[in-house]
Structures are given as C-alpha cells and as structure tokens.
C-alpha cells in the first residue's frame, strides 16, 4: 500500500472550510473556531516530520483539530470551576419540590421535516452557545462527539456527580431554548 503524502500548499484550499464547519458546531464562538483551524494548520506544518503516511492527510488534520479543540476546553478550566460554584443555585426550571416551573413545562413539538432545515441548525447552535460554557462542553463531547461519561470526566477532570448535574442542566436548558426560539414561534 502506498503511503500518504502531505501537500501543505493545498491545505487551505482543500480543507479550511471543512475544518471550520467541523469546529463551528463544537466551540461556542465563530472566532474561536477560526483560530482553532488556523492553529491546526500551523501545528500540522510544525509536526509534518512526524507524519508517517499511515492515514490520509485529511484525517491527520482532523485529528490535530480534535486535539486543539480538547486543549481549548481544558484551557477554560477556570471558567469551569467558577461555573460549578454557582451551579446548584441557579435552577430556574424546577421549583423547590422538583416540579416543573410553569414557564418551563414541556409542550408538544412538531419535529417533522426539521432535519434538513438549516435555520433550525443555527437555532440549535445558538441555544447550545447560550449554555454555560462548561455545560456546552460536556454536551458537545457527549452528544456531538459521542464520548461516554467516563471519558469526558477524565478529560475535563470533573467528578461523575458533577458530570450528571451539568449534563442534566444543559439538556433542560437547551430543550427550553429550542422550544422558545423555534417550536413556539
């Protein structure tokens, strides 16, 4: 089998938009996504001697981008920690007895034909970006990247009980945001 080659002179042209589209659904801000992609190309260039041609150039760039995104999450650790502190006291979805607040009670959704809808995708991303950063991160790792909870706890250095609080809060908030900004309109 012939080995894969690197052609850095074609990278921007071939992969910049694909990588940006990948990053944009995983980090909350477009500028951050752009920086990560740019960073990916420079990291790739610096480490091109370590490329052994066992995977395609494209997959190699994706691997680098994924690790840049994970680094980006980890750098946010201070934000993560301050989020934990306030996390127990800001639940506006349930009352003291754990019943739904009136304004947050789930209504029925009509989800037909939404999957191809670009507008909806953007609403979804905006709702995800509106979550607290740490919630958005665990949500992304779990449901967009398909990691399991153990892996996520390990990577982000959070406890399992913190994880379940975060993911619950993220999903309740996201659901409510989607209802308000899409299904109720």
């Amino acid at each position, binding site marked *: 089998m012939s080995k894969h080659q690197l052609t850095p002179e074609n990278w921007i042209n071939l992969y910049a938009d694909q990588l940006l589209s990948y990053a944009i659904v995983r980090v909350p801000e477009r500028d951050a996504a752009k920086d990560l992609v740019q960073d990916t190309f420079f990291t790739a*260039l610096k480490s091109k001697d370590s490329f052994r041609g066992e995977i395609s150039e494209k997959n190699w760039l994706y691997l680098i981008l994924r690790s840049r995104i994970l680094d980006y999450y980890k750098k946010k650790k201070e934000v993560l920690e301050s989020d934990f502190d306030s996390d127990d006291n800001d639940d506006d979805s349930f009352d003291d007895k754990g*019943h739904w607040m009136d304004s947050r009670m789930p*209504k029925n959704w009509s989800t037909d034909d939404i999957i191809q809808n670009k507008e909806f995708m953007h609403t979804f991303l905006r709702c995800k970006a509106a979550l607290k950063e740490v919630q958005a991160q665990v949500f992304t790792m779990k449901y967009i990247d398909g990691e399991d909870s153990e892996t996520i706890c390990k990577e982000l250095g959070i406890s399992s009980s913190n994880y*379940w609080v975060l993911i619950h809060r993220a999903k309740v908030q996201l*659901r409510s945001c989607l209802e308000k900004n899409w299904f109720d309109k």
Partner: protein
Amino acid sequence: MINCKESTQLTIKKEESKLTLREKLELSFHLLICKYCKAFSKQNSWVNSMSEKLNVQDSFSNAEKEAMDATLKDSNQ
C-alpha cells in the same frame, strides 16, 4: 415517588444504562402519570439524534484564506 426533576435526571442517565431496577420502575411509573416528563423524554431522545446529525456548512472569506495561505507558505520555507 420521584418528582419531575428526578425523573428528567433519570431519563438522561438511562441513556448510559446506569439505572438500578428501582430507578427504572420509578421512572416508568412517573412517565405514565406525567405528560410533561413524557414530552421531555421524547424530546430528549430527539435532541440526541439531532446532535449526531448536526451539520453546518461554514467557510472562511477569500481574504482570510489568502492571508492564512501566505503565512503558511512563509513558515514552510
């Protein structure tokens, strides 16, 4: 008896098959009597499948690409 907050927590935990038998029974019972949590459960599964398919096409401007390309070529010298 579990409340709605607990029922939604269990609904999410159930995705990783982390429920005890008691929790499973309590959740099933709650979902039979609470239409809001029933709706939550259905929407939760839908959001999960949506997240896997999340696909947004974005692109850099031509100016941004040219700038990146130039810097990349410089550092490749």
